[in-house]
């Protein structure tokens, strides 16, 4: 039925063996309409149920995929038909991926905006009970600890990936590659326990420090940096390296001036992913860096609050004024996302400055 409704405008285009441009759109509209109408019938049969929009859209889209394949196969032949089907699916995956993102963003923004105010960014939680209070102590802690973790893990990770791609041969390189993979599987809380145990050995029992949190984050961050940078470095064509060697450029300069800039965009993406991964970690920071309501600038002395822990504890421990606590939690989540977005933006700008100007 869908095929016949959509096939009508095809007649003119048939001669050329290709579907005219508006045909797919017409098909899409037709299938959606058919699906919507049929669900109206179902709804009228059982009026006590709600009209099922999601199912109607879903059926319409599936119907479109089938219809475009059949129509295109009839008109254009099997290969273009496959091509159209895949195009539909690829676009569809993107739309599917957008759904949770939109839902998430909507939830976070709607719930986070009420407390996204000046107090939130100038107050800590010292002496605050119930309403009010802010997250400046958590923001400072997150930036300090994530920054330190990045300062440790980006050089180490980048150098390691350079070693693996440019220098490493033999068992050592294989071992590093393998164990970096293993490291990606360290559960975040185990990293936290490790950092906590390490600093307990040095400073005595029960010690909780910002730097311990940073070390835990670095343990989590390094393998992600290595893995993604390695992938990007490997993609740099050998011809580029060989051209450089042929000009008499030493290997280290080749790496520094040719290989790194070529893969800069990819490496930045990887690093940003790594930062985004660790900046939202809760469990290791709770174990290693502890919990506090006060601002602490010193990584080496005393507990340090971080945004994820702030969000988590505001959610977990709501007290009698639950609404105020939840509002703080959502505002904290929104802040965290905004921080990562800003970092991402900066990273991209930097990548653009360093990247060679090639058409891509």
């Amino acid at each position, binding site marked *: 039925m869908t095929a016949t409704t959509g096939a009508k405008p095809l007649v003119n285009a048939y001669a050329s063996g290709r579907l005219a441009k508006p045909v797919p759109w017409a098909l899409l509209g037709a299938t959606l309409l058919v699906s919507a109408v049929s669900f109206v019938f179902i709804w009228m049969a059982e009026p006590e149920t709600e009209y099922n929009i999601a199912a109607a859209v879903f059926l319409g889209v599936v119907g479109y995929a089938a219809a475009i394949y059949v129509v295109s196969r009839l008109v254009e032949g099997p290969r273009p038909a496959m091509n159209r089907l895949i195009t539909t699916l690829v676009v569809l995956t993107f739309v599917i991926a957008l759904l949770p993102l939109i839902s998430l963003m909507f939830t976070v923004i709607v719930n986070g905006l009420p407390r996204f105010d000046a*107090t939130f960014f*100038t*107050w*800590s*939680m*010292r*002496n*605050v*009970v*119930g309403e009010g*209070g*802010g997250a*400046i*102590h958590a923001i*400072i802690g997150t*930036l*300090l600890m994530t*920054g330190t973790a*990045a*300062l440790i893990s*980006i*050089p180490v990770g980048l150098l390691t990936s350079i070693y693996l791609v440019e220098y490493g041969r033999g068992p050592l390189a294989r071992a590093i590659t393998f164990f970096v993979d293993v490291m990606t599987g360290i559960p975040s809380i185990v990293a936290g326990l490790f950092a906590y145990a390490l600093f307990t050995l040095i400073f*005595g*029992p*029960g*010690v*909780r420090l910002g730097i311990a949190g940073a070390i835990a984050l670095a343990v989590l961050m390094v393998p992600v940096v290595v893995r993604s940078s390695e992938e990007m470095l490997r993609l740099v064509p050998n011809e580029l390296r060989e051209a450089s060697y042929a000009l008499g450029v030493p290997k280290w300069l080749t790496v520094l001036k040719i290989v790194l800039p070529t893969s800069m965009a990819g*490496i*930045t993406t990887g*690093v940003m992913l790594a930062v985004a991964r660790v900046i939202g970690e809760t469990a290791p920071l*709770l*174990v290693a860096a*502890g*919990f*506090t*309501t*006060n*601002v602490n*600038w010193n990584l080496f002395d*005393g*507990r340090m609050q971080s945004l994820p822990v702030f969000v988590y*504890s505001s*959610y*977990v*421990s*709501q*007290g*009698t*004024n*639950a609404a105020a606590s939840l509002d703080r939690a959502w505002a904290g989540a929104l802040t965290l996302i905004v921080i990562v977005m800003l*970092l991402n933006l*900066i*990273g991209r700008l*930097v990548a653009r400055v360093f990247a060679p100007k090639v058409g891509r």
Partner: protein
Amino acid sequence: MKITRTGGIAALALAGTLALSSCAANEPGTGGNDDQPSGLSGTLIGAGASSQQSAQEAWVAAFQTANPDVTVEYDPVGSGGGRDTFKAGGSQFAGSDRAFKLDEIEADDFGACIAGTDIIEIPAYISPIAVIFNLDGIDSLNLDAATLAGIFTGQITKWNDAAIASQNDGVELPDLQITPVHRGDDSGTTANFTDYLAVAAPEVWTVGSIESWPAEFGGEAANQTSGMVDAVTNGTGTIGYADASRAGDLGTVAVKVGDEYVPYSPEAAAAIVDASPLEEGRGEFDLAVSLERDSTASGVYPIVLISYLIACTEYAEGAPVELVKEYLAYVVSAEGQQAAQEAAGSAPISDTLREKALAGINSIK
């Protein structure tokens, strides 16, 4: 990348120096200690049960307001973590949903205390646990312990079961599947709730007091009090148990004690603690309560969580003894308990208990 990071940190550091030592608008700067009304200063570190966190926040806030140069850190790592930290000497006091067991006290010395001395345990945070459910149009149900145990062991599966209906004349119960929700994480709330079931309905609830739920009872698992409340709120025909302050708009169960049904209330929760004896064989100021959950006294609500504050009787050298004493004294004082009730919905301790606790606190060296 590295450039942005260092740049960012430099900018942060700059912002930090500009805004004095602490840039939070509500915190005192370094130069702010001109007048010291109390003379107390320093940092006191505690760690332990997350159940106490809201109450601790209220206590800490009030105590720090009265003594601006004091910082009290309470780290809600959990009861087990809190006890271990205290034992290792990593904190000056601990919060725990249960008292130390006798063999635990005898087995090791406590890191923060002088070896061989007793510890002080104060039941400072008493919180009723509400049995909450989500049924349209029903705010309250009467249930006895055996029915509750039947529901939570999966033996009673429908809301209109005869066992429930017979206790609730005039309530229209729906023909709906019961989804019992229990805590998926190990928690003091579960331990206290199952302890009640084990004591009050031993023939139905046969596994005793447990911290983690047996898989064969089925039901839904939710994590933390917030997860429990969310699961009960978002589900259909759900029933669970949570800290009473979080019951909100959910329906709550009045529990059968003796011949009457008692809804939860702070007073009824405090009453059961007063009606229960202290545990035998402990140190003079080790106020571990042995709850009589099968008490038939009038007006007691038997499902309560007692969270203890644990400190040394004699601290090792260098510990902020004055701070510990002042802080604990504030916590057990009438104002402190009042603040906790407002912030966390807990039940204030009675005057008799307060006297015993204060005697212990004053003896701290």
